[in-house]
């Protein structure tokens, strides 16, 4: 793992980064700044803030102290320069692409993704004139072949949803680098505890913080983190960052802010205009969640692998897709990119197809049937009838969400209890 700080390691940073004691009160738990606006010292101070000439708070749609603490913590843990927290993971995807895209431009997208992202990028983005070009996740050459003059970004999920797929980050980062466009990696399923995509050449990372980061299924949120490494200055492909912004008195973000440019733009323009801000309350819940991320991820991973190994031996199970199993085609990539564990979200196929899948859901007693992942509780889902149901049959199979597929998100309960619940449910088929 890359050294994130000259003195402190990952677990220390998960607890302490971004959340020094409150300067006014000394409060040790970071306060919830539940406010919309902030007083200006005088008219000149207000002008300096609106001109982006001095750090400070104006209005919580753009910045808020509690939300900023979460941004700094996430940027620190990913080894990034800055972060922009959003109202959801979907908002983070749009916010990540907003400074890069324009009508008629293209984003190359891996075809193994969360079903909601396939819809967002494949359908809704067309309304903005943004064209998503889907390519085979497992084939870096397919990404290379899809590059055109109009390409402005490549988007992939690391450890792709609905599970068990490890993406060859380094190979795809090389394609992005040669194409001169940023690689955007959704790192929700791995979290920075298991993999830091910037180490492998990614330029931007997005998360749904709703999942393992907040960790208890109680706060919807997202984040975009910038590595600070992409060369925006003088880059005609990205005029948002490389040419003067009239509303900020002709300020050019890449010139004025250097490696802070992307994060400054994301607050001063993207959040200002799109308004997909996270509430201070959700940010506070997520800050607390991240403090225990390393402990939870260790347990999620060990429980997840034990359950996968159990399932692999069951007569009613056709196959198990977990990158920690030696039978997985992703086993070697998993060892390379996720040496500490390949997560706890994965899929398996039940014998008997669609009907057996539904029967399985109705037979579990400990697992919760919900459309979420990364909770302390073990969760179960039948993607074909839920998260991926709005896709075509062909898209579902390409995304690893065929009729027989069950998705699990293994929690941190006693592993024997989790296994026993699945065992009795499989016996009901």
């Amino acid at each position: 793992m890359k050294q994130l700080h000259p003195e402190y390691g990952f677990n220390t940073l998960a607890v302490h980064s971004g959340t020094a004691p409150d300067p006014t009160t000394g409060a040790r738990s970071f306060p919830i700044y539940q406010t919309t606006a902030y007083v200006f010292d005088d008219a000149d101070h207000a002008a300096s803030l609106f001109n982006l000439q001095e750090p400070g708070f104006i209005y919580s749609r753009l910045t808020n102290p509690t939300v900023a603490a979460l941004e700094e913590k996430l940027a620190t843990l990913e080894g990034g320069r800055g972060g922009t927290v959003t109202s959801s993971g979907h908002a983070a995807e749009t916010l990540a692409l907003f400074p890069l895209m324009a009508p008629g431009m293209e984003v190359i997208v891996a075809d193994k993704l969360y079903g909601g992202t396939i819809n967002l990028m494949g359908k809704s983005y067309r309304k903005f004139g943004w064209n998503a070009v889907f390519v085979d996740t497992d084939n870096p050459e397919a990404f290379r072949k899809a590059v055109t003059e109009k390409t402005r970004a490549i988007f992939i999920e690391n450890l792709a949803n609905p599970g068990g797929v490890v993406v060859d980050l380094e190979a795809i980062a090389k394609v992005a680098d040669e194409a001169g466009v940023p690689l955007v990696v959704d790192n929700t399923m791995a979290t920075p505890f298991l993999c830091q995509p910037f180490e492998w050449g990614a330029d931007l990372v997005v998360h749904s913080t709703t999942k393992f980061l907040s960790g208890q299924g109680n706060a919807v949120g997202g984040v975009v983190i910038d590595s600070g490494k992409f060369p925006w200055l003088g880059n005609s492909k990205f005029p948002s960052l490389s040419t003067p912004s009239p509303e900020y008195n002709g300020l050019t973000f890449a010139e004025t802010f250097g490696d802070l440019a992307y994060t400054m733009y994301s607050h001063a323009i993207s959040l200002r205009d799109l308004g997909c801000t996270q509430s201070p309350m959700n940010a506070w819940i997520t800050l607390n969640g991240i403090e225990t991320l390393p402990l939870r991820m260790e347990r999620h991973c060990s429980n997840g692998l034990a359950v996968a190994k159990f399932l692999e031996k069951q007569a009613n199970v056709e196959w198990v897709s977990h990158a920690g199993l030696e039978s997985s085609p992703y086993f070697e990539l998993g060892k390379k990119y996720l040496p500490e564990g390949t997560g706890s979200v994965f899929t398996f196929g039940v014998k008997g197809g669609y009907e057996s899948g539904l029967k399985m859901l109705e037979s579990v007693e400990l697992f919760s049937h919900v459309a979420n992942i990364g909770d302390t509780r073990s969760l179960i889902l039948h993607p074909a009838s839920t998260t991926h149901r709005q896709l075509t049959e062909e898209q579902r199979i390409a995304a690893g969400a065929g009729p027989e597929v069950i998705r699990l998100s293994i929690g941190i309960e006693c592993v024997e209890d989790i296994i026993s619940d699945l065992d009795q449910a499989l016996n009901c088929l």
Partner: protein
Amino acid sequence: MPGPASVDHNSYPDSYIREILRNVRSIAMVGASATWNRPSNFAMKYLLKKGFKVIPVNPNAAVKKICGETVFPDLSSLSGTVDMVDIFRPAEDAPELVEEAIKIGAKVFWMQLEIRHAEAAKRAEEAGLQVVMDRCPKIEYARLTGELGWNGINTGVISNRRKRL
């Protein structure tokens, strides 16, 4: 503190930058602009607000005052010494400015974002000056006091105390 010769100009320890910003009281800002929306202008304004004495240096004779401070045409025209010379000038001007900074007895030679000049840095260090390049004192001050974190920037500062420089 490491001596000047041991400074890695690709990666400054926070302690190095913090010591400079704590010790420096007066700054000659070469290339300060009178135009309110240029980075040098609002960097100067910010540093003045934080209590530094900032002396603008700009050869344009038409510019008499910047942010209320009297403008000097070059470093050699300053009446006394300054603790730090901060340059908003192209890198090729750095060697000449280092010589002037040494002559007026400055203790720190600081080159702004995107400005790097290894030879000029070496010359300044040999004369006993501390050198910073490709950084902005406004950004570094805001980073080390935690203000930069207000915009979601990773300040790298971990503290068990209320934030201060």
